[in-house]
């Protein structure tokens, strides 16, 4: 997690030892966050998983916004066979990737899953997520300290004829 003093004074400042300098008041200037540090931080992003809306969850998890990039390939079905088990995967050609996360906008809590990608691990993940209803699905890749995103709409409805 990169450290920055955003508008919320309550955001916990994560001190990473003498090496890192807390750049106070410089806002969202992108700077080279050492990839190792993001990977080493094993703490479970409790705050981010509590956010309801996608934008808040992204901010809580990464502290800044992402820009769409065609280097992030998001693969998800057009119509989900079943909202309970939706196979989703993402691959990217970006390098120095340190984290990949999935956000399901229409779910009660937007952040679905977040993966830490240490050095030497291929920046690609496949998993199965739940989707409450037809929704925008966003995948975010953190590469070399910057955020890149891809999104897609997935249609979800119930099955069966009556009951």
């Amino acid at each position, binding site marked *: 997690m990169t450290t920055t003093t955003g508008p919320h004074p309550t955001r916990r400042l994560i001190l990473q030892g003498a090496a890192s300098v807390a750049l106070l008041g410089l806002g969202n200037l992108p700077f080279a966050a050492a990839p190792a540090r993001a990977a080493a931080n094993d703490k479970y992003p409790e705050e981010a998983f509590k956010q309801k809306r996608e934008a808040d969850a992204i901010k809580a998890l990464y502290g800044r916004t992402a820009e769409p990039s065609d280097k992030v390939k998001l693969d998800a079905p057009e119509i989900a066979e079943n909202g309970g*088990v939706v196979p989703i995967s993402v691959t990217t050609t970006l390098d120095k990737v340190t984290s990949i996360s999935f956000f*399901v906008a229409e779910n009660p809590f937007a952040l*679905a899953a977040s*993966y830490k990608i*240490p050095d030497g691990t291929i920046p690609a993940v496949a998993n199965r997520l739940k989707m409450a209803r037809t929704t925008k699905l966003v995948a975010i890749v953190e590469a070399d300290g910057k955020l890149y995103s891809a999104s897609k709409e997935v249609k979800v409805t119930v099955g069966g004829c009556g009951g």
Partner: protein
Amino acid sequence: MASSIRVRATSNGDITEVQALIQHPMDTGLVKDSKGELIPAHFIQQLKFECNGRDVFVADWGTAVSKDPYVKFSFKGAKKGDEIKISWTDNKGGSDTTTAKIA
């Protein structure tokens, strides 16, 4: 009792592909049971894969991950026969761990 974690790790060249399927209800806490009571949230929060003494993959999961969760990833720097240690912890303090050899 067999482990709740099924792992398949296959290596070709320098890249090892890992697939894992874990037996876990992944209850969101928002679903009611037949008697109309809320089933409390019970889901895996963190899943860690270690190989040759370092983390090769760490998953932080919320309630939107499917029941009996599945994940697939690949990593470099390991060879056939190396051992991968997989462990998870859930929001109720439950946990399980297992090891698998790279085929």
